[in-house]
């Protein structure tokens, strides 16, 4: 199996924060911007998803560029 690049694991973070975090975030206090904590937690996770996926995308682009300039013409671990 192809090795999973380290930064791809980053993409699992928001999902884990939702699936594993909700049991602990299930409360009303403290309010964030007037919202109950549970809702605020979820909104935070959604925003984080966007941020994290942008970062992962950027890192992948960079890696693709590096690989292209470094050598094999087939590209960054992708089918030609």
């Amino acid at each position, binding site marked *: 199996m192809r090795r999973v690049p380290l930064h*791809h694991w980053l*993409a*699992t973070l*928001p*999902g884990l924060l*939702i*699936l594993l975090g*909700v*049991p602990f975030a*299930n*409360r*009303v206090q403290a*309010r964030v*911007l*007037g*919202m*109950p904590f*549970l*809702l605020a937690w*979820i*909104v935070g*996770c*959604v*925003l984080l*998803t*966007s*941020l*994290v*996926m*942008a970062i*992962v*995308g950027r890192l*992948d682009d960079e890696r693709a560029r590096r690989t292209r300039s470094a050598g094999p013409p087939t590209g960054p671990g992708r*089918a030609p």
Partner: protein
Amino acid sequence: MNPALAILALFLAISLALGLLARRGRTMTLEQWSVGGRGFGAVFVFLLMAGEIYTTFTFLGGSGWAYGRGAPAFYILCYGAIAYSISYFLLPVIWRYATTHQLHSQADFFVRKYQSPALGVLVSLVGVVALVPYLVLQLKGLGIIVSETSYGALSVPAAVWISVTALVVYVILSGVHGSAWTAVLKDIMILGVAVALGIYLPWRYYGGLGPMFEAIEKAKPGFLTLPAKGMSVSWFVSTVLLTSLGFYMWPHAFSSTYTAKSEQVFRKNAAVMPLYQLVLLFVFFTGFAAILQVPGLTGAQADLSLLKVSKLAFGPVMVGLIGAAGLLTALVPGSMILMTASTILAKNVYRPLARSASEETISRLARGLVPVVALVAVYFTLEGGSAIVPLLLLGYNFVTQLFPSLLLSLPEKPLATPAGVMAGIVTGVATIAWTSLSSITLAKAFPDWPPVITDLNVGIVAMIANIVVLVVVSALTRKRARVAVAAATMVAVLVFVPTSRADDSNVPIATDPFSGGIPTTDPAGGTVLPAGTNVDRFTPVFAPIPLKNTQLGWGLGVMAGAIHRFDADTTVKPSTGVIGGFYTENDSWGLLAVEMARLAHDSWRLRGLASHCDINYDFFGIGEDAGNAGQSIPLNQTLDFGVAAVLRRVSTGLYLGGALMAMSTKVELQSGGAPGVPLPPGDSPRATLVAPGIQGELDTRDDDYWPTRGSLAKLKGWFFTDGLGSTRNFQRYMGGWTWYTHLPARQLVIAGNANLSAASGDVPFYALPSVGAGEYAFRGYEQGRYRDKVMVCAQAEARWHSSGRAGATAFAGFAQVAPSVGDLSNALVLPAGGIGVRYQMTQQYPMHLRLDYAWGRNEGLLYFAVAEAF
């Protein structure tokens, strides 16, 4: 006509016009009609995908659930985010494959990957079945919007008929281009309206978000957090998980990925879509704002909350605009769904059945089916009574059943077989259909189980059934299914750990040292290897062995030792020597050392065993009535014992010899226990037992770990006598015969076993034969629950092994206990059966990890061990 309705009509006209305009200058081939010629950039794909995802469901269902249920509605915000992070990795893979092979629909993907047109038909049907509730909810939304904004001038049925006609017309005329253009309009509208309402309403009625939530919390305490039961955290997490996996399994969502120009599109969308998702937040605010302003909407009525509160707050013109936004959120996805459903019916259901049909015919049929599908949806819309969110969840549960098959298809060679995938999907879908038709929930089926388990979305159960069947059938229909089986074993373990709690009372592996239990000296392990095979004389083995015993519970054993050979000849079975220990969850533990040697070309068999155990288990009493009653007392027993045996070959496969056993034991009652189960006097606390024995065996098996032919017959007698220092005088006999055969392909082995154990004299209870204990471990009854002076048992097992490391089994049999041989004819028959999976631990020797689940008269029991039961 009031102004609101006029605005609504205007927007309907605009969306129709857009659909027709989009069509100009293009020839409507199937390729153009269904995937837009594969030329859509990030913006259009984004809009198309948003178009399907932000639907009436979000607009009316999202606010309706916030209004009616509170915090559980937040799940809608979560699953999208998770699905988008998955999409970053998943969609490019799908897109590349679809583009290379010029695919149109989701079913095409499965057909191509698994090389199975039949699978395509099945996937299509599942997709269409799931799309119907999705379409129904759009029409329901349309009906609500149109009739509400008409201020009662139009009835819901009239509104539904008008909208569905418009929908059908523009789908037929312009296909996906119509959807994309209307999507642009729709997205501007929904964004504007949702955000405006979500900010304005809380401010207007409460003076801000904070005061609004405080007022709700005061009026309905606990409404803003997940409840402890029902739609609890457990429901929430399982639902988010399932729906995020199902997100792209919708046929229209799946095939809209095909419209992308490059895979870069998906990478961008993964970052942008979650932000767009936040529109939902404002939809929730609107629903929450409605709670105290338009109270009293219950059940499916809650879906009206957004429009009701809008009508309260605004004049008809504004209500008309809000209604128009709602109209578009139903039209765009509605058209997409209609188109997808009719395309797959024509292309993936009809075509495989009528192979000679031309492209032209299929294309015409696809368009012709649009009104048909629409009519079916209209029927359910006007007949059914469900609220919007449960409808979508039902659809989600259906499509999610496709996820395991998709995942296993992604490697270059699919990890499952078409038959396995189809069987899995059918099982999953049937489970969903059955649970929703009979409205069975886990909480109703298992009222005693903790809410953490019973609140799980029932789709999880269907998913597990799906995966198990997928793996077993794949394994049965294919040689190399190793990965899939290994994955399933892990899933099965994960699942059964919580569910196996049902039997956490329990008996020891070693209460019955006389015929086996843990440290039976008999499975003199060995595998014959072809002559000249280059093997080490000494193969070290070290294994942590998880185990699940019916009395001791889950535990971990550690075993270290070697499979070794005294002869250089590899055609002789090897010897085994190990030391090990175990500890289980009920605080039982033990240490043991075993050597099973074969000397001088297997003409001598020498066996030795020494062990110390300290085990906790339940004693149920003696006799079948005691077993049926199921009352028990908890005992603690320590044992120190040793056994040595010498057998000599007298002719091919026949060995005869003698043995000596000595043990010292102490049995004590722990506190508690049921009245009416007395510990037999004299059996407690201490005893020293010594016995000489005779043994004989006829062994023609080809392998000791995984025999495929031959048989093994055994006879043993032990004679406990005070002459050698034993404190009790009694005799113990055991006879058993196991027989193996295989189908020509050798992949399927049939094993049969019959055995009888008997005791006579002054027998302590722990030396009595008991069902489930001993070397032919009968599965399905708690060890030691049924014990008496005589026990008979017969069982059969079908064992399948892949050419890799995986295997699966199914078994059934019965046992009886009685005070004497003559009483057997009147004894209760104890039937049991079950299924299991196997994983071969070493490449060289077919020794397996064994996971079995067996059902007996009283309960179902899980077994996890190393080596076969018989």
